[in-house]
Every structure is written in structure tokens, then in C-alpha cells.
């Protein structure tokens, strides 16, 4: 493995080039598509345009300009507001997820026996009990007509939290072992398809007037992606010797100081790559943005949908153009943290 013969070298080069071409081709297709005029978008007429015959910037004009011309175009508005929106909410959501996620990860890694090890019947059972206890309340709230008011939701949530805690304690008496696990529930949350839960979230958001605001989206993005942060950051923290922060604490610094001044700087590579991941996840989300925005804060994927019209079909060229523009922020982010990427992504799992 550390000695290569010439034929191996040639073979490797060959393989790399072939694989790279295969992997790059869709990207190439997107790039060239963004410069093709409409007549060359489609292969339905029987001709494949491998390179644009008449390269044009029209597709970019189409997505970036407010259209007031006299000819029908699928989108009349410019994508710029959606780009701004995407940047704001993706960065905001990423920061929020990093904030709560990193703290929780550190807590779980250092100060908790929480291994995420929870038998499924306990997890389901606990949820089931909570449902049993809370269903009468929700029906009562509905009958009282306060289910969709902010005070109704708030009181209901508080009762729910209390009930959840009591159920946890009671279960703990009869079952030896963990009955609740933060790291488990957040992973569970992450695996849950967002479709269905989004409907009540939408209702709740509307009640709290968070629909179509950037902060409303930021909170949801944060909640949806912070499980990632917890799992990734936990493995990074696990890799940093516990003695380090303990030594700092023995030397007289506070727990917080030890975390921020000693541990976090050591984990910054991991933090950077986690941030990139979470950013990409937020950046490419479509459904949450669709359901929680209306007029002002639609993101790029939501705008992409405007590039389809039943009359003239999907605007492949503009879509590719906007797609290409949308690649820029993650790539820039990736370049900024490039130095951390390769090392950081081992998730600290390899012990030296």
C-alpha cells in the first residue's frame, strides 16, 4: 500500500479520472444547462446538446431580474429576495442549532451517563403514557376553544412537560435503567419524516405569529438540525481527554471557562465541519420553508418551484442557473473551513 508500481499508478489515475467524470457529469450538465438557450434545454426533440451551441446569460437574467418585459416568462419576480432569505435563515438556523446542540453535546459527553441506550419499548411506552395522560387535556382545551390560542398552547405545553417528567419518574420506579434519554429522543426526532409534524407546527407558528418571519424559520431549522450537532459534537468531545477540562477546573477556572477556553478551541475543527453539514441541510430544505413562509421569506428551493409553469413547463435553464448560484454559499463556506474539513470529519472517532 505504501509502494506503488507504475502500472498501479496508471490504473489509479485512470480510475480516478473515470470516476471523477462520472461524478462531475451531472454538475457539468447543470453548468452547461445554465448557459443554454431554451431551444437546447431539452433532448425531447431528439438532439442532445453536449455543449451550449449559442451560449447565453439569459437564464441568469431570468432568475435575477424583476421581469417587466412584454413576453410571458414563468417567473416574473427576481430570485434575489429568496437568496437573501436563504442566507439569513440558513445561517441563523445553523447558529441556533450549533448553540443548543454544542452545549447539549458537551453536557452529554462529559457530565452524563446518557448513552442513548434506551429499549424501544420504554421509549414508546413513555410516549404512549404521555399521550394517554394528555389526550383528555387536548380534548378539554379544544372544547374550551383555547387550543389555538397562545395561552392555550402555552398552558398545554407546560402541563405536558410536567406530565412527561412525572411519567419519567414513575416509570423509573418500575424499570431499572434509563427511562429517558436526551440523545435518544433527539435522534428519534431526526429520523421522523417532517411532513406530518409540520402541520401542527404550522398552526402553532401561526398562533405565535411566527409564520413568514426569518426568526420563525430559524427556530424550526435549529430544532430540526440540532440533533446532528449533538451527535457529531458529542463524538468530538468524547475524543478530547476529560483530564483537560478537569485540570482546568482544578486550576481554578469555572466550568464555563474550561468549556469555552479549553475544550471548544480543541473541537473547533469538528465544530466547523458540523456547521458546514448543518448549513447544507438547512440550505437545501424545501418543505419547511414552503409551509412556514408565505410572501416575504421564501427560500431558494421555494423560488425554484416558481420556475415551473404548466403552460411552458419547467424552465430548466433558469433552474440550473439558480442551482449553480445556490452552490456558491456552501462552496464558499467549505473553502473557508477547508483546513478543518479532512481532519474534522473523522468525528474524533479515530483514537491516536
Amino acid at each position, binding site marked *: 500500500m505504501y509502494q506503488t508500481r507504475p502500472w498501479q499508478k496508471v490504473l489509479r489515475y485512470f480510475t480516478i479520472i473515470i470516476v471523477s467524470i462520472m461524478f462531475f457529469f*451531472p454538475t457539468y450538465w447543470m453548468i452547461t444547462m445554465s448557459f443554454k438557450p431554451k431551444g437546447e434545454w431539452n433532448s425531447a426533440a431528439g438532439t442532445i446538446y453536449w455543449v451550449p451551441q449559442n451560449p447565453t446569460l439569459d437564464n441568469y437574467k431570468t432568475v435575477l431580474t424583476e421581469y417587466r418585459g412584454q413576453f410571458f416568462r414563468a417567473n416574473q419576480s427576481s430570485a434575489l429576495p429568496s437568496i437573501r432569505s436563504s442566507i439569513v435563515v440558513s445561517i441563523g438556523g445553523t447558529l441556533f442549532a450549533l448553540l443548543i446542540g454544542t452545549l447539549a453535546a458537551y453536557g452529554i459527553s462529559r457530565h452524563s451517563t446518557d448513552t442513548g441506550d434506551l429499549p*424501544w419499548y420504554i421509549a414508546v411506552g413513555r410516549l404512549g403514557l404521555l399521550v394517554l395522560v394528555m389526550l383528555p387535556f387536548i380534548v378539554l382545551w*379544544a372544547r374550551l376553544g383555547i387550543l389555538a390560542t397562545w395561552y392555550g398552547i402555552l398552558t398545554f405545553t407546560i402541563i405536558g412537560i410536567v406530565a412527561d417528567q412525572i411519567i419519567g419518574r414513575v416509570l423509573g420506579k418500575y424499570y431499572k435503567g434509563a427511562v429517558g434519554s436526551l440523545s435518544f*429522543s433527539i435522534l428519534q426526532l431526526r429520523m421522523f419524516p417532517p411532513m406530518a409534524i409540520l*402541520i401542527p407546527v404550522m398552526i402553532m407558528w401561526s398562533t405565535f405569529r411566527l409564520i413568514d418571519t426569518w426568526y420563525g424559520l430559524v427556530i*424550526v431549522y435549529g430544532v430540526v438540525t440540532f440533533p446532528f450537532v449533538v451527535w457529531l459534537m458529542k463524538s468530538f468531545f468524547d475524543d478530547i481527554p476529560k483530564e483537560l477540562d478537569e485540570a482546568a477546573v482544578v486550576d481554578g477556572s469555572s*466550568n464555563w471557562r474550561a468549556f469555552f477556553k479549553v475544550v471548544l478551541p480543541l473541537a473547533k475543527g469538528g465544530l466547523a465541519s458540523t456547521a458546514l453539514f448543518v448549513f447544507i441541510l438547512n440550505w437545501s430544505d424545501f418543505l419547511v420553508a414552503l409551509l412556514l413562509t408565505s410572501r416575504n421569506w421564501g427560500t431558494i428551493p421555494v423560488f425554484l418551484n416558481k420556475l415551473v409553469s404548466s403552460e411552458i413547463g419547467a424552465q430548466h435553464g433558469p433552474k440550473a442557473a439558480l442551482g449553480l448560484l445556490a452552490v456558491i454559499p456552501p462552496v464558499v463556506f467549505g473553502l473557508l473551513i477547508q483546513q478543518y474539513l479532512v481532519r474534522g470529519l473523522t468525528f474524533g472517532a479515530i483514537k491516536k
Partner: protein
Amino acid sequence: MAASTPITTKATPGSANRRLRWIDMNNTRTFATTLTLPAQLVLLLIMIFPLLAVVYISMTSWSPTQGGDWTQAYKFWDWGRNYVEVFTDPFFWQALGRTFLIVGIAVPLEFLLGLGLAFLFLEDFRGKRIFYALMLIPMMIVPAVAGYMFWMMFQSNGPINAVISAIIGQPFTLAWLSSEAPATVAVIIAEVWQWTPLMFLIMASGLVGLPEDQMRAATMLGASGWQKFRYLMLPMLKPIIIIALVIRGMEAVKIFDSIFLMTAGGPARATESLSIYMYKVAFQQVRWSFAAAAAMTVLVIMTIIASYALRPLQAPQREAQAAMRQAAETGAAGSD
């Protein structure tokens, strides 16, 4: 650190440990609670109401088209008939099975490709950085756009068939997206294309992180390339392989955008994944109470899977506990 701690340990191992632990106990509980509190709170504050609202709706036959407000759903209370419907709906189980099929093929494929590529990129060669960057681009492309590109490329007179035709030397005009098996293959290819870079990145950094001397030691002991891979690399990479597979698996079961744009779950229902199914039920057919029941069913299924998926992740913790026991033994042996 290297200077201070070992000395302390060495001087009075027992007492120092006890002292550290004592400090831990003293203020760490509050500290630990403070650390996890935001996450706990956010989780409960934001999830409790929607979760129970989903359960509430699922116990009724209400949907927006029944008229009336969702809060009034109790008027349509039907004791969870929706759950019976979910359990007897073949499309639900088909979608579930199909999702696991796609995940079960795509994720291991991504992993193997990623690992293979990582090996290819282990040594330096001319233009490595450029190829590296090329390999990483797919995961940065918005899935919605990627889905479109694949849709176009998989047309029967599209570029992919053109390339295949050129290779086999005769016209190849498979209509990929028009029948079940090829459409599934196409969906998997798109998924693999988009996410192999992530696996590649993870595996590449894993390989770079492998201790070189251990590899050389194995070489010196006469291990073949395969033996090194089997006995050294694989066990050493195991933790990140597991994390990578779990993370990818978690995301892949939600596969939506690419399928939605390439086939919209079609032809017929041939590529309908769980998310596509849920989307159709919730946002095309607006059967919200049924969608809610399906969602709760999925939640339970996913909970069961999560509890097993997490097992391998706890291996390090178990190892750490074993190490602590071992350290205790050593300590005891030393004091004898």
C-alpha cells in the same frame, strides 16, 4: 496538560482521582443541567404540542375538507380507525418497504464507493486537489436542482443513454423513468451521486487519520494488503463507519426531493417512498387525520429502528467502562 496531570496521578493516584471526582460532584450537576437545559427545553416546548396535536387529529376522522376548524376535530372522534386504515393500507407498507430497499441499497453503495474513492485518494498525485474538489461538489447542490438534472439525463434520448449507446455500440433507448426497476435504479443512482461525496469525505479523513506506524508494523509482520484492511483498517475505522452509516441512514429514510422531481413516486407507485407517500396523503389529498396516524406509526417504527441503530454507537462507551475496570485492576495489582 502532559506536564501536570501525569505527575499528579503518579504522586498519589488514588487521592487525586477522588479529589477530581469530588469536584465533579460538587458543581457539575447544576452545570450539566445547564448545558442540556436549552436542548431539553427547545425539544419539549416545540415538540410536545405538535406531537400531541398530531395524536389528537389522528384519533379523529377530521380533515380540512370536512369543514370546521382543526381544534373542533373532537366532533369527528372515531377512536383511531385511522390506525386500522394505516395498518391495512398496502400502499403504506409498500412505501415503507420501498424506502428501506432504496436506503438498504443506496447507503451501503455510498459507503463502499466512498471507501474505495478514499483509498484512491490516499496517496498524492498530480491534480489531487482539483479532483478532490470535483468529488465534493454534488453534496453542495440543492437536491431540488439535482433531481431535475437527473430527470433530464435519464430521458431515453438523454445523455446517459447516449453514452451507453456509444459504449455498447448500438442504440440504447431504455426509458429509465417509465418502468419500475429502472426508475428505482435511477433514483438510487441519483441518491448515490449526491451523497457518496459525504461518505468519501468521511472515509478519506478516516484513512488520513489512521496511524501510519500501525500499518507499517502490520506490513513488517507480513500482513497482506487485504489482511491489513481486514484486521486493522476496518476495526479502526469502525466507529466512523458506524456514525457515517447511521447519519446517512437517518437522512436517507426521508428521501424526498430527488424522487419527487424525477418520478414523483411513479410510474404508478413504483418509486413511492415513505416521504412521498406522506406528502401525497397530507398535501395532495389533505387527509390529515390519516396522515397524522401514518406519522405516528412511522414514529413508532423509527423509534424501534433508532434503538437498534444506536447500539453500535455505544460501543465506545462500553469500551471506556471496560477500560476503567481494567485500570482499577492495574491499580490494585500495582499496590500489591
